[in-house]
């Protein structure tokens, strides 16, 4: 009984120790990966609300040379919705991804029903106020 209690105590201490050492990079990577997945799905389905909670307070949006400016988070939702719905994307093909470092990003190609040529996209994140946020979205 005593032995069991001691072992149980050891296990608890280990668990506490493991959790108290923030495995930042691993947790951050998962978060970043999750955000990128939501972005890809959101763009493919036209559902901006999947990734709009991750937009920065002021986010840069560049879109086919039509717009290239900073927008507030509130405004960015509808700006993105308008353009991405208009594009009517068939497929989002990620060619390059980095999920670690100061500026994680994904980039690749977009295949649209309404646009003859393939489009390229680049989306990067920035760490702000304790969480990862979408910093810029460029589609051209």
């Amino acid at each position, binding site marked *: 009984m005593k032995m069991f209690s001691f072992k149980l105590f050891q296990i608890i201490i280990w668990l506490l120790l493991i959790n108290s050492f923030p495995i930042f990079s691993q947790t951050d990577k998962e978060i970043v990966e999750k955000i990128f997945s939501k972005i890809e799905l959101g763009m493919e389905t036209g559902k901006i609300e999947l990734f709009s909670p991750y937009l920065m307070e*002021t986010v840069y949006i560049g879109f086919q040379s039509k717009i290239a400016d*900073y927008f*507030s988070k509130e*405004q960015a939702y509808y*700006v993105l919705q308008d353009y991405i719905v208009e594009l*009517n994307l068939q497929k989002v093909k990620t060619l*390059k991804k980095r999920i670690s470092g100061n*500026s994680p990003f994904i980039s690749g190609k977009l295949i649209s029903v309404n646009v003859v040529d393939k489009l390229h996209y680049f989306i990067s994140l*920035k760490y702000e106020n304790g969480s990862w946020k979408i*910093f810029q979205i460029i589609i051209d």
Partner: protein
Amino acid sequence: MFNPKSKNNRLIFSAVVFIAALLIKFFSPINDYSGNWKKENGGRIKEVVAAVDSAIAERERVLVSISSQIEKKIKSDTLKNFLKFLEIISTVQNNKIEINIFSNGKLLAWNNKEIISSNELYSKLKTEGKGSCFFYETPLTVYFAKISVIDSIEMFTALPVEKKYILRNPFYQKVSLADSLTNEYGLSVKINYNTQLRVGTLPIKNSMGKIIGGVKFADSGGVAVKHDIINPYNIVISLLFLFALILFLQWINKIIVKDGYLIKIGFFIFTIILIRSFIAFTGQDDFSFFGNIVNPIYYSSRKLWGFTKSPLSLFFTILALFVISLKIFFTFRQYLNIKTFSRIAKSLLFGITLITFLLLYNWFSDILKSIIFDSSILYFKDATLFGGYETVFMYFNILLVGITAVIFGVLFVEILSITILQIQILGKRNLLFLLFSVILFFLLIDEFICRKSSYVLAGFFLIVTFGIYYFQNFIGTNNYLKIFSLLITGSILSVSFLNYFNTQLEVKSLKTIANELTRSNIDLYEYYVNNAIDKVSRKKQSVSELENVKNIDALAFMLWSNTLLSTEVRSSALRIIDVDKSLLGSFEYEFALPYSWQWEDSLVTKKQLKIIDDNKSAKLIASVIPVYSGKSITKYIEIDVLYDTHKIAINSNNKLINYYALFKGIPVNTNLLKIYEYTNDTLTNYFTNVFLTKQEKEKIKNYSKHINKEDWIELNIDNDKHVFFIQKNDEQIIAVGLGEKDFMWNLFDFFKVFFIHSIMIFLFFIIVALLNYNKWKYFKISFKSKILFALLIVSIIPLIFLALYLKDISNKKNRDAVNYKLGKRADGVEHYIARHINNTDNLYEVFENANKDLGVDYAIYENENLIYSSEGTYYKIGLLPLILNPDAYLAVKKYGISEVILKENIDNYFFNSLYHKSLIKNNEYIIKVSDLLNGFRLPMSGIELNVFLFGIYSLAIIIIIIISTLLANQISAPIEKLTKATRSVSSGDMDIQLQLESGSGEVKELIAGFNLMVRQLKKNRNELAKMERESAWREMAKQVAHEIKNPLTPMKLAVQHLIAAHQDKSEKYDSIFYKVTTTIINQIDTLKNIASEFSNIAKMPELKLQPINISTIIKETANLFIEEECIIKIENDKEQIIINSDKEQFQRMIVNLIRNSIQADAKNIIIKTFPNRRL
């Protein structure tokens, strides 16, 4: 079924409309179009082909007309020399056409640039023939051209149809036949400007039936059909459903909502919200048909659950609130009788209203903050007055928000004041002051907790709403003035808040700038390079057909301009390389690295990309792609980009080519920014003309050590307080700051929006006046208004002329200053060259040194050819002609002028060029200096002057209006008093006397005269009345005496006769006695009648009874005493109280009551009516 008198008509009509809409929606043939657009597109394609033919025919007509004109003049001219040709060409009134005249293989005359070489001309003459139109392609532009031959002279005329390059700046003029057709017809139109037609391409022919090109269409998603047919169809269906809904709600309102104003208000609000929701749900506020006002770029916010997702959507929401505010406002005034509420109910109402007032303030602040922060429109930075129509629309929304807030605010203040005005302890004024203090207290607490704007603005909000409430209820004035005051204060309130939030945005923009400076990294640049190389590879055909291209540099520029390199990258190059690795042509932008083949493979067969990091500050990202002709590689295209974080400043000489505006869309003036970059604790970069002292540098550095990632600090630089945003990224620190005084409001900021609102309010009153045109004949302009208009016209019109004159003078001075500076620079260059030319034979070395030593950018021409330019970019790529301006050539060669200044342009960017004739080593050259390449800082530029004048003159006009109004009031006040006094006299009040102190000079005499006249009138009236009475009495007495005498005489005679008979003891005594007594009795009756008639005369005059509205009569009568020194308050429960009475007598009674009160020194007279009370 349809009974005109039936209450159910609306329900029936609603059902009919609803069913019709359903039937159209589900059974319309248009539903097929969504998947069957190809059928619809067939007809559309025919239309586009016809449009292309028409466009070609039109251009051909222009070319034929102009070339015929020139041909006639050349034929008629005997002296056929090039100067004459230049003169002839300069008379052509079309600034788009290019004309080149050749003879014997030499260019003789031109109107702009040399767009075709003589070799190409003769080659085209062989293939196309003379007089036949064709497409002529250069690296930058495609022309529609024609060659004419007149004797030994060849004339080439051309009109541009397609610009292949893009300049992403506000001056760029797009020319694209393909794009204009795409926009008009919704199909993607591509035009081939050569005769090699691919499969699926329809031919384009000239007037001679020769194929000159081809057109191809694509509509992969039915976009055209959706745009032109399905969207309008959806709008119509939605409107039908909306109409049905409105009818249905109206029916419910009539049938179900019968009694109770609260239920009516509640249902009304529910109706408005339902209609607004329906519009949002069906997307009627989102159709692209409405253009930019549904574009979320101009405004959008996720607040209010999607009801503010565009400017139009915001408008519908604000309009709904505005309508609700009006309904509650007027219903409250008409029905709500708070005075009958119990004390507990009043307290509850007070509490709820107070909270609602605070919520109103919060909502108002939120919405205006959102308009600033969630919109790309820079309301204050943009110096143009109106901007685009979407901007004007947003200005209107801002005005509507302000007006709605004021209406609600006045309503709430009115409710609050009524609930407390029952307290009899304090006077009314004191109660209002107490109420104001209570609301202010809670408002400041709300501001402390919620931080919506500032304490000053919160107080201002309360002052404005309170002020309007006071003005509407306690100052007598007409309804139009009340409406006007409401509208103006709505504007003032919203503009004040807007300015405040704009200042907040400016502060926040410092953070945005810091983010922008750190946004780019190597990964992003790699993306740009990949993107650019892919785009360029789609235009490989242009490169593969290079053999006839004269200017490969221009081709490289054209390719570069179509990529993101032109707007997103600070330093880049695009190179076209021959298969033997030699450089054929290139375009470099801020890129100093020389060309060398850097790829490991000698034969690159597919796209490659690499990053070269040789431990310098800058990294090079390069990509190359081969260009094939068949299976052989003929060329390479290489893109090089330099990623260098240590460069913030941009060479402004190339402002037209690269619109890499580091801080585009930022609301602050970028010239006032102070940006400092530290790397490893050392200041490595800056963007400012203010240099930090050592202490200031240390301060920023030390402060940044204590922050985590970013923070705000205040710093004194040059004795000016600055706000800085500091951002830390590993070893890099960026500090972006602006002086506090540069955040402050200026006159222009306030008056710009206010001025536009004033115009909108003015238009509103014009519309109201037009709608009431049938009442114009009753409209009288008062004496006061006439004086006011006269004063305004006399003051404002000269002011406007003065402003225009000042602007004209300033523009002239600026022009003279520019020309003077250009002249000085040209002289400086000439003297430098003259001093140094003898020391060397290398002219170009001297030219280069002149540029470096003097810091002047210039060009030199020998005859008509450019031989040197210090800033050769624009010439190299063909944006500026390599050949001399023909007007300069004529001025110098024909007229012998030594210096001439000409206005030139690249697209819509206009600049001045000075051409100066100079002798260098006995050869004639022309030095050109322009303000395109040499920036001048003028004391006040055109825009700065406009801003300054607008602000100053707006303030002056406001001051003039205020002073004129006060003067008009003062001048007209005595006349108004006289007018009202005269009206009082005419209604019977003879006791009125005006104060002599209220006038001076002639007016005082007039008042004295009036008072005397009234006293005299009163005296005369009294005397007249007395005289009339006396006369009447005399007359009556005379009549009565006469009437009384009449019966008395016979009575006396009869009695005398009786006495005589008695004395005579007549036998007929009995009959005489009987006769006499009868006579006497009759005469007594007569006397009695006379007495009755007399008493009837003494009765009062008869009353004329009729239904009268005593509320109106009391108001009208009270207005007669408006100039008296007392306050007359009328407390009527109802607007209409109808009784049967004599109007004149009733009015006279009220006059007497009021007059008597005034004479008893009453200061407050309250007239109350109690319609149902039994006294």
